[in-house]
């Protein structure tokens, strides 16, 4: 008897727990927004949402935040279930794939209705969100790579200015490498290493994006040179193995001469490296002013019940007022021209170095590389990167690696 009673009560208890919070809060004027690992700005978002609700009475906003690696899994599950968030913050090239799959709403008409809104943003960053002549995202916050250099190590090696060419980059690295010290590092995820290729005018694909274009003798030589410098310690091999913490941490430790990374790295490095001040850390454009962006943008899911409202929310969150707030609190650029001015001014005062770093993000925005509007970017990345890694870590010679990479990339292109 008591057994059965126990079970009953157990089930009853379970039953009461079984009502999903968000189903109860179902209402047709409900917006859900999914952000990409920026939970630290909860306070700001709450404010933004409050204001938005005031302007649009009867609207409820559900805010979700997932961290980068998990967000795709979550969003796609939601897509299948038909409960995709109305607004989504996407980083990198993921959006292209989803746009091509028809998950995202084409914002072009909205843009056409509102040229003033479009004019607020840096056209170069704006154009990085175009896939087959359609706009899909609105810039939320943006970043692109630059070259940080350790002035102290430069002095020791008798170097004055940052490198102007790829050859100098390698030469400088070699000059600074001895013992624990290494010369150069780069972040490698999301094509962030691609400027190195671009400096040597190597293209990933043919202009029509139909065929691989990287399997050239020049590229093979380049890979071999990188491999050699890596073996000799001129290039720190963390550049090819680490993702985010390792390279930034290594540079923060003050034993690496140069690091190619995006502006976000500055705050990480500064948080770790006590040595950092305007006399010891320099921020410059990489040789040839090439850089790879890692931008965050807001898109609207096609499945959204009320897209107008969703787009209104996007406009609201990227408006000068709130973009400025974000720029100031999070020390990022938003591609919203006015907001970035304001943000930079506020930074200039108490952190001139951060100012210098962020400044680079607004220069040479026409020289951005490593972001191709490819519906299968992720697959190509997966096909190319491991072979590249094999080459620079000296497991294969450049030629074989590139050949294998070409085969793999061909496969991907053939499939689509």
């Amino acid at each position, binding site marked *: 008897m008591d*057994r059965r009673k126990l*079970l009953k009560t*157990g089930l009853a208890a*379970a*039953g009461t*727990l*079984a*009502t*999903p*919070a*968000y*189903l109860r809060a179902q209402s047709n004027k409900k917006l*859900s927004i999914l952000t990409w*690992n920026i*939970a*630290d700005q909860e306070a700001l978002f709450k404010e933004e949402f409050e204001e938005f609700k005031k302007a649009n009475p009867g609207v409820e906003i*559900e*805010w*979700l*935040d*997932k*961290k*980068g*690696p*998990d967000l795709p*899994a*979550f969003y796609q*599950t939601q897509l*299948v*279930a038909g*409960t995709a968030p109305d607004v989504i913050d996407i980083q990198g090239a993921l959006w292209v794939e989803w746009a091509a799959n028809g998950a995202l709403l084409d914002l072009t008409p909205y843009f056409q209705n509102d040229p003033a809104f479009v004019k607020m943003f840096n056209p170069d960053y704006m154009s990085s969100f175009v896939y087959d002549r359609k706009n899909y995202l609105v810039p939320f916050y943006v970043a692109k790579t630059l070259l940080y250099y350790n002035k102290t190590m430069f002095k020791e090696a008798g170097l004055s200015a940052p490198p102007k060419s790829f050859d100098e980059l390698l030469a400088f690295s070699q000059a600074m490498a001895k013992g624990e010290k290494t010369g150069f590092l780069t972040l490698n995820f999301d094509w962030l290493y691609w400027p190195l290729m671009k400096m040597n005018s190597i293209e990933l694909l043919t202009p029509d994006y139909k065929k691989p274009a990287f399997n050239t003798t020049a590229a093979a030589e380049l890979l071999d040179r990188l491999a050699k410098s890596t073996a000799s310690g001129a290039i720190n091999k963390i550049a090819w193995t680490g993702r*985010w*913490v390792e390279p*930034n*941490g*290594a540079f*923060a*430790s003050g*034993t690496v001469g140069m690091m190619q990374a995006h502006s976000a790295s500055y705050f*990480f490095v500064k*948080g*770790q490296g006590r040595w950092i001040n305007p006399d010891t850390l320099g921020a410059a454009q990489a040789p040839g002013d090439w850089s790879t962006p890692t931008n965050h943008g807001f898109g609207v899911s096609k499945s959204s019940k009320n897209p107008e409202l969703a787009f209104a929310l996007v406009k609201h969150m990227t408006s000068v007022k709130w973009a400025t707030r974000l720029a100031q609190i999070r020390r990022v650029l938003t591609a919203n021209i006015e907001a970035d001015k304001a943000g930079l001014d506020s930074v200039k005062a108490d952190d001139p170095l951060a100012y210098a770093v962020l400044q680079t993000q607004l220069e040479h925005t026409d020289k951005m590389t490593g972001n191709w509007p490819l519906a299968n970017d992720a697959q190509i990345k997966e096909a190319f990167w491991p072979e590249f890694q094999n080459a620079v870590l000296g497991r294969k010679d450049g030629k074989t690696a590139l050949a294998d990479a070409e085969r793999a990339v061909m496969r991907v292109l053939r499939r689509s």
Partner: protein
Amino acid sequence: MVRHQRSWPIHLALLIVCLVMLVPFYWVLKTSISGENIFSYPPNIIPRAPHPFYYVDVWYAIPFARYFLNSVVVSVLTIVANVVLNAMAGYSLTQSFPGKRVVLMLFLSCMMIPFQATIIPAYLITGKLGLLDSYLGLALPMFSTIICIFVFKASFDAVPRSLIDAARVDGLSEGRIIWKVMMPLAKSAVATNVILSFIWSWNNFMWPLIATRSQDMQTLPLGLARFISYQEDTTGALYAFCIMVLAPGILLFLLAQKEFVQGLTTGATKG
């Protein structure tokens, strides 16, 4: 005498093993209270200038209390369900009945499907059941686990037939036989079930990630995962978080280990 000569090598061997098992704990604990400059060699073996502030950071980095509560509720649901359902299933498997082998094979083959491959259908099913973003929905997929069923089966098997037959002769119903005769002899199995099912639900990471939407349904592993993502720079804090997440499991285990470990030796045995 003989034992004395023999026992010291055993102790030595076991001590070494224990060392291997424990050192990682120490290393993490040490890091969590003293931090570690990732780029200074050699690392300090003894924590230098220990302080609790990494734990403070973690506490405020995520709504720890809330996540903790969620994890607890889900785990409790899972444990109860596991003990009951697995005992039932385990008992049936001790009986001989047509189709037993099939069922056994079926159970076993259920373990051969990686969860990552079932995410989408599992999500859709849970949605159909209307359990998304609810405690029950989080716990349901783990309501019965094959390993534990086998654990029950094993310890039921070990219950001497004679005892059961005697009970039958006394005219006890099957239910009563299980409850009054078998369960008491299967304490160890129960302990094992409690601990294992707790572990699994407590540690589950992928399912909560997919099945929860609202912030306040998140469980601790998700907190940890989020932590790895950008807080990772604060090395100490990361390991502090590890400790804070692991502590409950270890505590429960240490509390129950007497029943658990001894149960395994003195429990249902002797044919």
